[in-house]
């Protein structure tokens, strides 16, 4: 916190303040003169969220894993150059060792390099899909929550209907119709994943709308726009940000599922799901290096995202509930 202790009149003992001057300075009541000491571990606002987050060990571990994964996938190829374009059948299924730290796969691609490439696709699709879902969901939910009444009912029934459509089924159909690129996969996943954030944000808006500080703004003559931009959005943002991390994790898993089912990116592009699928078909041949490294990466990243999300959620909650 920026407030320094010496900035307040702490030198005067508070109980000596009121005595002498009964009427000269009636505007300086003694009672509240001393602020409680700012807790250095919990400053306000977003800095406070960062501090609370930093107190969560799992959250920090998760963040570290994510940082490592991003560095591995994007910086890795700069230092560890491999050919991920031309098939090399002569060198297929090589066990780890020699020039291949993690061996080679059925097409003779270097597995380590391929995990980096597949990781890029998985992370990109995950992030992009989560952003699309969050933006759509937030807007939709906020509009429903703010509008209320009939419009709210209709909008939320639409969500209910979409929720009951088997997601995978539709995605598979769409994926067979259109060429699978990072962008198209992100769009497809994002367009189906906005339902949860929509519900979440609507609920949050409904709660915030009845909070007294929002009513107070109306009482001051504040406009609707001011209420939304200054009070509703900043207060709902915490929940939204937390949701993004879970959305990313979900999207990475979803894209892995698609890849595993063979509806992922087109060869020679790949993602972690596609790699797993390739590995599983040779599982009985004892080619473990096709499964474990990529699986560990996938599970690790998803787990890390969940850790980060949990820690963020706690941090945001503390801000709202510290009373």
């Amino acid at each position, binding site marked *: 916190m920026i407030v320094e202790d010496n900035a307040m009149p702490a030198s005067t003992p508070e109980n000596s303040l009121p005595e002498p001057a009964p009427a000269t300075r009636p505007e300086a009541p003694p*009672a509240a003169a001393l602020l409680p000491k700012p807790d250095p571990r919990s400053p306000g606002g977003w800095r406070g969220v960062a501090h609370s987050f930093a107190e969560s060990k799992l959250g920090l571990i998760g963040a570290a894993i994510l940082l490592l994964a991003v560095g591995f996938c994007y910086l890795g190829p700069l230092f560890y150059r491999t050919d991920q374009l031309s098939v090399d059948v002569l060198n297929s299924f090589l066990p780890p060792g020699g020039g291949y730290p993690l061996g080679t796969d059925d097409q003779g691609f270097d597995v380590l390099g391929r995990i980096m490439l597949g990781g890029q696709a998985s992370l990109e699709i995950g992030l992009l899909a989560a952003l699309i879902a969050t933006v759509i969901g937030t807007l939709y939910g906020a509009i429903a929550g703010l509008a209320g009444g009939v419009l709210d009912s209709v909008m939320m029934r639409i969500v209910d209907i979409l929720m009951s459509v088997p997601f995978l089924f539709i995605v598979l159909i769409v994926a067979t119709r259109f060429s699978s690129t990072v962008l198209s996969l992100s769009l497809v996943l994002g367009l189906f994943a906005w339902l949860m954030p929509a519900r979440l944000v609507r609920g949050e808006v409904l709660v915030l709308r009845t909070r007294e500080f929002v009513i*107070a703004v109306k009482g001051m003559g504040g406009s609707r726009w001011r209420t939304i931009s200054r009070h509703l959005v900043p207060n709902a943002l915490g929940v939204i940000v937390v949701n993004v991390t879970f959305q990313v994790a979900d999207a990475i898993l979803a894209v892995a599922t698609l890849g595993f089912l063979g509806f992922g990116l087109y060869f020679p592009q790949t993602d972690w799901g596609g790699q797993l699928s390739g590995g599983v078909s040779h599982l009985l041949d004892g080619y473990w290096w096709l499964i474990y490294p990529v699986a560990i990466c996938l599970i690790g990243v998803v787990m890390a995202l969940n850790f980060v999300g949990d820690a963020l959620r706690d941090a945001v909650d503390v801000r709202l509930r510290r009373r």
Partner: protein
Amino acid sequence: MPPTTPPAVAVARTRENTVDPVLEVTSLSAGLVKGSTVQPILTDVNLQLGAGQTLGIVGESGSGKSMTGLAVMGLLPKGVTVTGGSIRFRGTELADLAEADYCRLRGKDIAMVFQDSLTALNPTRTIGRQVAEPAELHLGLGRAAALSRATELLGLVGVPRPAERLAAYPHELSGGLRQRVMIAMALVCEPSLLIADEPTTALDVTIQAQILELLDDLRGQLGMAMMLITHDMGVVAGHTERVGVMYGGSIVETADTARLFQRTRHPYTAALLGSIPRLDSDRSVELDSIPGAPPELGDHRVGCSFADRCTRAQPRCREQTPELDLADPEHAFACWNPEPETAPAAAGPVPIELSVRTDASAPLVSSVPAASSVPAAWSVTSSPPVIELRELRKEYPLGRRLLPGREVRTVKAVSGVSLQVRAGETFGLVGESGCGKSTLGRMVVALEDASAGAVLLEGSDLSRMSRTELRRRRRDLQLMFQDSFDSLDPHLTVSESLAEPLEIQRQGSAADRTERVGQLLDEIGLPRSAASRYPHELSGGQRQRVGLARALALNPKVIVADEPVSALDVSIRSQILNLMRRTQREHGTTYIVISHDLTVVRYIADRIGVMYLGVLVETGTSDEVYDTPAHPYTAGLIAAIPVPDPRVAREKERALVRGELPSPVDPPSGCRFRTRCPLAQDRCAEVEPPLREFGGTHQAACHFPLIDPVA
């Protein structure tokens, strides 16, 4: 026992029972264990409680009073453990009792009544099953026998038609009835110790009086000991034989109730008693107030925990922790420099704070005369009204109308209220929860639209204003909220919150606004450095000051304060009340103060309106209304207020207003109060009584008023 003690019945009983106490807590300490460190929560708590006796534990939030109750129940929250001392219950040591043995004890020999009956009862089970459960568990009764026992108990605690209520779920009952059910549940096995943790805090005064009376009666009938945990000195004065005052996790003073109130020795107890507004306190004098805020639970420091707020503090108080001096078990206190012992005041309705104030050498925060403006405020009768309500009504539809033509039932929150509030005046609005007072307040500041009637601000109708006009005029109408935590945006700093009304109303440049925020902080007694704080970094009292400052920021003509001090600790309330009065004097603001607390309204308001079920039943100056109430409801409300003076409290009549508030969906015909009125006659059901004149400004709507009307 010294012979000087007045031979009250209660005291005599104490002597008998000290021989064989039901509960004996000796130097009990408890703490929150964090790794290898222990954060103390209770330190050296000593209590004694005899059979048939009631021990009051009073304290503000964070004083450890609830923790003490939970420690005896063996229900301390996770992480908190007993670190020393003993809890002896009828010869059994509880401090290190195994959980299995505790289970046999809890609910059978020791039972607890919680504050919030809605969360303490299981919403998915009928009350019959819940009341019968302890009987099945501990007494080994069969299902049918247990249910009949439950019926018996529900009858005992005053639930009407108990057999029919067995199948009811908790949400189907009113708050007062639920509290009775909880008491029945606690009493099923006839425990020898009942711990009641703030049993009436969530209830209205009229219900509170009934529940406390019930607990007193039951204690006598069943011969059990009771531990009454509360923050209300008035409740303690009227319903306990012995009191322990807690502060910062320890007992700071304990004595017989009569003695504690008459010969208060600990400065905290004295200051607390002085800061409570009372019906008979002099309104022209500011309330005493205790500076600062009580320490939070576990916030431990060297020396006396009250030293920072104490006017009698000496250097020693900050270095050595005073211990409860048990040399005189009749009256023990933990203080290095106690209030001087005074002779017991002569019997009679002499307010206690006089005995405290006679000590002129160390007045507890000077009692500033509240200037001459208070009597003057009432000479403004001739000035035009700032706010005028004309036959104001508000009805909320129940559910949505699906088919046209079908009658929609409505909740009649406000049913035709007319009144005028003049400039510079404070109008107090009192009534039980659900009487429509908050709805009325929100209509005055145009946060709710009236269903019928009009709110006139300086003669112009709020509902006829255009949107932009209304938006501009809102600067004259501000609302101060009850919950200062909810009313301040947690993401905005104090200065951002205070500047917001100025920004919205486009007042001044950014620099002007910063200057104004500084002024406001000076005015409410917060250091300017508070501007960069977030709400959660302030104490409850400080937040409520910020709430007041925000309401003052635009220099409004009218401030509606909805329960401004209800959420605050007793020692903080007087700070805020004094501040509200002080700012009003300086700015000539008109206040409409809404509260369920009659003493608060009595202290702050020049004129008072009493609401019952959406209608104004009595109005007049606060002296007129409190000294000579005309409406039986007003008289009942006044009688129900717990007075922090055992002599007055014990002589009080039993609760005058019985039963509970009828549903505002179908209010009774004629006079709405008739269903609970001891004076009701046939005519009350047929004709709605009009407001009648009782001299001066005094008006009341009653067919059979307690005083004679004028003409």
